[in-house]
């Protein structure tokens, strides 16, 4: 079961998200007026509908706060999405997730700089060793396996690998 703090944090983040969507809808309404009729019709309808639903949701959330009620998402049946586990919902889970996202961004930056192969050679051992304290032999095995996979995809399926801005030569 979620704690009150976790539920409150989730509700605040959700309010922020809905507000951001409302602002985007206002931006769409504002900028779409310059388009031709055929390009303007649907964006205007969709953006007004978005704004209406955002207002409805913000109103519902405000009413809930005024009443002091907190509805736990654990109640009732939810078929909406794959859920986040309770222990990952809190601030610590949020920080851990953002930390991993930063690692993923780092991998992307390495790919853009050095290309897919060198980025993989650097990223995989770094992630496994620095973050998870894994055995270096396992890291090496995964790197070799990934390079073999890339080679196979490139050779047999004709896939292209992202090249880097710095042209560092590689084996294949």
């Amino acid at each position: 079961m979620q704690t009150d703090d976790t539920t409150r944090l989730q509700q605040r983040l959700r309010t922020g998200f809905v507000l951001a969507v409302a602002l985007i809808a206002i931006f769409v309404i504002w900028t779409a007026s310059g388009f031709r009729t055929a390009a303007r019709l649907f964006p205007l309808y969709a953006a007004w509908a978005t704004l209406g639903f955002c207002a409805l949701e913000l109103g519902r959330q405000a009413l809930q706060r005024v009443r002091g009620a907190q509805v736990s998402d654990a109640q009732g049946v939810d078929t909406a999405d794959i859920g986040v586990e309770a222990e990952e919902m809190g601030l610590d889970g949020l920080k851990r997730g953002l930390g991993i996202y930063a690692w993923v961004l780092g991998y992307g930056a390495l790919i853009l700089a050095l290309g897919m192969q060198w980025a993989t050679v650097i990223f995989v051992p770094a992630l496994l060793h620095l973050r998870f304290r894994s055995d270096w032999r396992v890291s090496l095995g995964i790197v070799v396996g990934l390079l073999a996979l890339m080679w196979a995809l490139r050779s047999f399926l004709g896939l292209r690998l992202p090249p880097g801005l710095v042209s560092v030569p590689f084996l294949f």
Partner: protein
Amino acid sequence: MWDSMIAGFMMLMDPFRMSMLMLGVAIGILVGILPGLGGLMGMALVLPFLFGMDPYAGIAILIGIAAAVPSADTFPSVLMGIPGSSGSQATVMDGYPMARKGEAARALGAAFSASMIGGVLGALALTALVPFARPIVLMFGAPELLMLTILGLSMVGVLSGNRPVLGIIAACVGLLLGMVGGAPAAPEYRWAYGVVYLFDGFSLVIVALGLFALPEIIDLLAKGGSIARRQPGLGTGWMDGVRDTLSNKWLVVRHSVIGVTVGAIPGMGSSIIDWLNYGYVVTRAKNKSQFGKGDVRGVIAPEAANNAREGGVLMPTLLFGVPGSSAMALFLGALLIFGIQPGPSLLRDDLDLVFVIIWSLAIANIFGTLICLMLSRPISRLTFVPFRYIAPVVLCIVILGAWQETRHLGDLLTLAAFGLLGWTMKRIGMPRPPLLVGFILSALVERYLWMSYSIYDWEWVTRPLVMVIAALCVVLVLGGTVMKARVARGAVERAATEGTRHAD
């Protein structure tokens, strides 16, 4: 017709053509297992090698790929929570929770057996409908197609669980995101700000990978451990899955029929059919408590439908030369390369070829799913490997899959942006599937809305078929809402009863 059916079968039984069909199945399984590389990608990869080949053999390869991808894409959906292609997104909803409960093999067994039956039923439906399909498809004009897309959007209510308004807002975000780039009905680029990458809008593959794959990788890495938490039932679990499918035979038949019917309508992509069927099975089920937590019916219904769909998408492609899906557009191109003109003349002059295609579809579905079934046990073991060892491989494949879209820096940036959006939505309890449904339907709704409005003004709403589909939308939305309210009331009552018991 019977002569052509037998002649088509005999033509396909030629060893070279059969080996090409099996090659297509193998390629289809490979691209299906790799997230982001769907049937379109597989067909695009082999197309350059088909020039000069025997047309029947070339067609067999392409149909082999088209038939095997909807089965093989179940592997990443169930084992990693990542849709293998756009047509297996809904399978994640229950297949992945099953894998996390240690029932990966059962989920795969159910999915593959449902896929096989669905695929064969799709081929049978195509056979049965060949003589009658033309008048049916001609009944659908732009207003009816608009209403069908709105029917798809109305499923958002069902897909939004106990947060319908949030689900609708997510669908609206999808609609807004789908408007970026060239307007479908006017020569205008919207919100592209001169960035060439945005002229075609966001790619569905990247949006899907970003929304569903990256958040799952991030959360599993952050949590640590393996995908599955328990290890029971792997030994013979796949046979349990087959038994699940057989005990839900009418569910398979019903969703195969839906898959074929909706698939026959051009533009209704595999993802729409997938979600439509998932929404429908949730709406119709008496006991909904396990949906989203590992209900095998949530795997069987979309899997039967997306394989049966291949029979449906072939109908407009072969009968009118109107591609039923993006992959079928490529197939159509291949037919033209071979000098075959699809359309009514194909039915009149070369019915044997139509049956080669139908037989290829049926046989490829059977062999594709049998191969997947045989592979399911060893591949299921992947779920018990610590995820930190799988994550780099999955991340690498996701990035490679995204990169193949346009091979532009923008692919990686878009993937990162949608990854953050998906992760944020998952964390704050905003349902992600409605966003994807809105995104997919955005261009279609706009195109059909404009066509209906410019041809009929607002009189299109009075067309009989439009009213029938509108009534269906209302029934589905109201029915779904009433049933959800009942289920929620039941859950609250159960919680209250348990609370009283604990207090005692």
